[in-house]
């Protein structure tokens, strides 16, 4: 079952169009929302949360129309915003407990949940410190804790790795993968494509408010090409490969070969022999999400 569906979804801030004609079908699991700054990621998340009303089309979250069943949708989701959302003068334990109470969890159980979830995100020892005294990495973890403390069916994470150092980023990505393992569906946005590639099963690429591409990560990034470096001239080999149905980009003695009708390595081997071309080097090259995004944008 799709956790998010949109139909011709659009939103405009006055004359500025932020989203136009979005048709999305996002399955359960860990999903990524990719796009440059201003691509419409945050606007889409706010519409899915019911904070913004769409100016065109409609959206469904977990089977409920957001514009018609806002309270129902909100009772099943969590949200980690990109910006600050933590009161500086409260301790993490108090605030996360309060965040659980806001989802209807009784005070005593909320206190226990806050303790458990803060331990989960690595703040168990620091939970009685005031949030204003936290470092950026700790604040990101606390923001994640408030988003999942009530065990939502779906959690929206808006740029969860923003402002983190490499170690902190890896830890946050690991936490996101763990959350997915707990049965909580995730929609995480980022403009850092490698984060999405490392974490998600499915990705939606946005560009200037439109869907550039959507699909499973494996389907998008496993279009393998082969880098070939030859001795001497490469023109004869390149032509032979093209004649055999491959797509070839030539850069001096280097060739980038894509072949979707069979094994590209077998084809290259055969054409090397046929043309008598000497081989210096040959290696597989998987396209990254970045290649796909930059190629499509």
């Amino acid at each position, binding site marked *: 079952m799709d956790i998010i569906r949109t139909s011709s979804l659009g939103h405009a801030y006055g004359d500025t169009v932020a989203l136009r004609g979005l048709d999305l079908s996002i399955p359960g699991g860990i999903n990524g929302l990719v796009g440059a700054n201003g691509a419409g990621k945050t606007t889409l998340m706010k519409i899915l949360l019911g904070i913004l009303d769409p100016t065109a089309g409609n959206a469904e979250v977990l089977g409920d129309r957001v514009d018609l069943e806002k*309270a129902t949708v909100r009772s099943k989701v969590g949200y980690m915003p990109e910006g600050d959302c933590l009161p*500086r003068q409260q301790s993490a334990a108090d605030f996360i407990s309060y*965040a659980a109470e*806001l*989802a209807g969890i009784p005070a005593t159980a909320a206190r226990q949940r806050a303790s458990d979830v803060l331990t989960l995100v690595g703040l168990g020892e620091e939970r009685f410190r005031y949030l204003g005294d936290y470092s950026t990495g700790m604040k990101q973890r606390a923001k994640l804790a408030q988003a999942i403390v009530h*065990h939502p069916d779906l959690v929206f994470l808006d740029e969860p790795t923003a402002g983190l150092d490499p170690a902190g980023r890896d830890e946050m990505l690991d936490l996101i993968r763990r959350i997915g393992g707990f049965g909580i569906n995730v929609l995480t946005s980022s403009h850092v494509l490698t984060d999405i590639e490392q974490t998600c099963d499915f990705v939606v690429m946005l560009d200037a408010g439109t869907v550039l591409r959507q699909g499973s990560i494996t389907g998008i990034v496993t279009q393998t090409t082969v880098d070939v470096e030859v001795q001497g001239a490469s023109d004869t080999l390149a032509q032979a490969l093209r004649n055999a149905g491959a797509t070839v980009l030539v850069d001096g003695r280097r060739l980038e070969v894509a072949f979707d009708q069979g094994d590209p390595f077998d084809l290259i081997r055969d054409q090397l022999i046929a043309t008598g071309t000497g081989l210096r080097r040959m290696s597989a090259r998987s396209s990254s999400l970045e290649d796909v995004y930059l190629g499509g944008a």
Partner: protein
Amino acid sequence: MSDTPRPADPTGVVYDRGYAPYTGVRHGSRAVFWAIVKDGVRRGFGIRRKFRYKILPWSLATLMVLPAAFFVGFAFFFSSQIDQGALDFFGHQSYAVFTTSIAVLFVAFVTPELIVPDREEGVLAVYASRPVTALGYLSARAAGLALTVGVFLFVPQVLLYLGLGAVDPDGFAAALTGNLDQVARFTAASATSMLALAGPALLVSLFAARVATGSGIYLGTVFGLSIAGSILFEGTGQRWGAILSPIDNANHLIAWVFGGRETSLPERADIAGIVTLLVVAVVGVVAVVYAHRRYREEL
């Protein structure tokens, strides 16, 4: 060589509890409303906040109670030496009017503290991911504000009531049961006074970017309106100027509830208590309507 006793086989086991999904009860919107109200009261009094957030509310609360203790002590030691008319000075109406200035300071601190940080620190985004509407949030915050200020005004009156009962020559029980009408009056006076002072504070807090700014603007507005009201009414004879000042309106409503008289501007302008109450209510409604328009875009 002595035998070293072997430790017993370990019997304790360390379990990794991992993550357990929450499967317990989830309450509805009423529980969420009260959670926000409770948070408002705690925030108002600085409970579970850093020490510096406790200083002002508890200092003002102490100041609020001290006159009651003084009144009761004075009545206890000097009741036989002064006439009953002088003792009436220590009544609930006098006390309410006497402490209005302290209440203004408390409201100036508490109202922005309840309203501004959620906006300034982005906490509204958390409410936006919970089943909380703009109206629900504002109602709960308004209720939290009313409860905090109401308690601040009401508790000293209760202490005064008990204290005056204790020094009453007819005995404690007789004084308590014989003056029950006073309880109803100082409860109503606390409520109307709270409305007169907190309504404008709520309105100001909606514009303020920081708590300190909100407090400063509120105090400036309240004292500025007091001066403007005096000038308009007494200087130019404009009667409507008499209902501009929240402090005078609060004092007028206190006197109206107790059926007494004092020297507030509306009293001098011969404005009926119900008119002052309507003005105060309109300010409160305007604040809530404007707040709803503003918060609808964020929740």
